[in-house]
């Protein structure tokens, strides 16, 4: 496995000294994300998220399967992540790195365990037929902060996805194609969004700097990190900080509150992008969408 190139001493000193003065190499301030760009594909549930140079692709697919015997009322939802040499030469196919493990666990905890998706709504016939949803996350380019980008990608893709309408009559199940019946959105209970903080310098004497959305360069130089997952209602769904520099509880709480504020902005951005896409898709035929009501004056 090729090792990640080490950052030269001069570069390291430059970045760290700049951070001490609250400056970053790309000109952002410490508490701001890079530009978030959301691009939707032709299909529902296909999203391409760019955060600066980091690029992540998420795709939702659904199929009908048998439910697990111990959970007869629930559909299935799995998230799979794939890191290949496309994102960075450090990653190899079929040999998951430590980052791979932590990332997939984080997504699992943030999205699945916080019950963002109501899996009971995926049930078609109890004990016989349920929808099995699968979110595939592909990393196309790695310039730091894969966690937050992947989380935004999965949530946006889920919110964008439409499930085909199913009618049940007796034993027969009919899955209607998109042209036959308008597919329905998933029932998402809330949108958990990850914010990762990076800590630079020791906590002694208060000269520790904490920044969000680190680039790959900053990630290689940081002394510790913490990921907080919050939704816009101010509920913390998951926190994980393992190792790294020891931090006062007060600093961590400040980070959590900051994350709650940031998430509101990101949440709005996603909602806006989804609405624009909806309008674009319904070009010319469905006027009620633009007017925001279900009945028109005749």
């Amino acid at each position, binding site marked *: 496995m090729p090792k990640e190139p080490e950052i030269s001493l001069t570069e390291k000193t430059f970045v760290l000294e700049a951070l001490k003065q609250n400056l970053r190499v790309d000109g952002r301030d410490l508490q701001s994300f890079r530009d978030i760009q959301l691009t939707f594909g032709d299909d529902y549930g296909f999203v391409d998220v760019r955060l600066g140079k980091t690029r992540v692709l998420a795709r939702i697919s659904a199929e009908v399967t048998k439910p697990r015997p111990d959970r007869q009322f629930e559909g299935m939802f799995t998230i799979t992540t794939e890191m290949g040499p496309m994102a960075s030469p450090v990653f190899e196919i079929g040999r998951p790195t430590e980052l791979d493990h932590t990332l997939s666990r984080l997504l699992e905890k943030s999205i699945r365990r916080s019950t963002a998706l109501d899996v009971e709504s995926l049930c078609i016939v109890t004990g016989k037929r349920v929808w099995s949803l699968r979110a595939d996350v592909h990393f196309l380019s790695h310039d730091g902060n894969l966690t937050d980008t992947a989380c935004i990608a999965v949530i946006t893709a889920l919110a964008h996805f439409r499930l085909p309408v199913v009618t049940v009559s007796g034993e027969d199940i009919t899955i209607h194609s998109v042209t036959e019946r308008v597919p329905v959105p998933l029932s998402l209970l809330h949108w958990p969004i990850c914010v990762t903080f990076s800590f630079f310098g020791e906590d002694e004497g208060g000269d520790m700097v904490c920044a969000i959305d680190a680039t790959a360069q900053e990630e290689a130089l940081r002394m510790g990190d913490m990921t907080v997952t919050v939704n816009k209602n101010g509920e*913390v769904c998951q926190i*994980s900080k393992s*190792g790294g520099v020891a931090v006062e509880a007060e600093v961590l709480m400040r980070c959590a509150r900051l994350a709650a504020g940031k998430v509101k902005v990101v949440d709005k951005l996603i909602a806006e992008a989804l609405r624009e896409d909806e309008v674009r898709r319904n070009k010319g035929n469905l006027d009620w969408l633009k007017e925001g009501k279900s009945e028109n004056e005749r």
Partner: protein
Amino acid sequence: MEGLRNDGRRWNELRRIHCQLSTSSTNADGSSYIEQGFTKVLCNVTGPAEPSNRQRVKQDSATVSCEVYFAAFSGTDRIKRGRNDKKVQELQTAIQKTFSSIILTHLFARSEITISIHILSQDGGTLAACINAATLALIDAGIPMTDYVCACTAGQSTSIFDNEGASPDPWLDVNYLEESDIPSLTVATVGDSEKIVALSMENKVRIEALEAMIAVGISGCARVRGIMDKEVRRYGKEKLEAEGE
């Protein structure tokens, strides 16, 4: 019963902690055994030694690696957890990262320190017990660390806020029943500095309730440190006296 939890503790009481050093004298450089209530964990430390894997060699510091084994009989259901189980891998990375920042790794370049943990019984607070056991085993192995790492759990007793807006007291050191019922977090601090080195929470909690939970967790860590320190000193004294004779 007013104000008592299902096992008869009050909100700020720890479960009984029993710890031991040097539990296996032959095959490990350091070892320990800890019981926190019915959570029982055995830990062995080997190293600093030559890395088993060439890829793990670091030129300027020691590599810390961690292996966690869940005994199949440790939980309520008999589950065999393999090496690739996600829960096992998460525990391993959490412990490995926590101790990489605490052990003075620069003193042992090109070597490896292995922490292997056997979970014999699970009754809530598994991660916390593992971290505590690893700290004791590392002390027994004589590996230099900046300070003790002590971990403890805290849970939010109920999500209902009373009329004055004050939340009820969080519960310290949750057991298995409480852990599966209420949101809880694990916090690990360094020595008595109240600084957090590891924090992990997996359930949904209002951000307002978080601060109280962390505060209670930290106070629990300080108590755990006291208990562990007492045992380390007792063991050290016993060892010295035995050598003096």
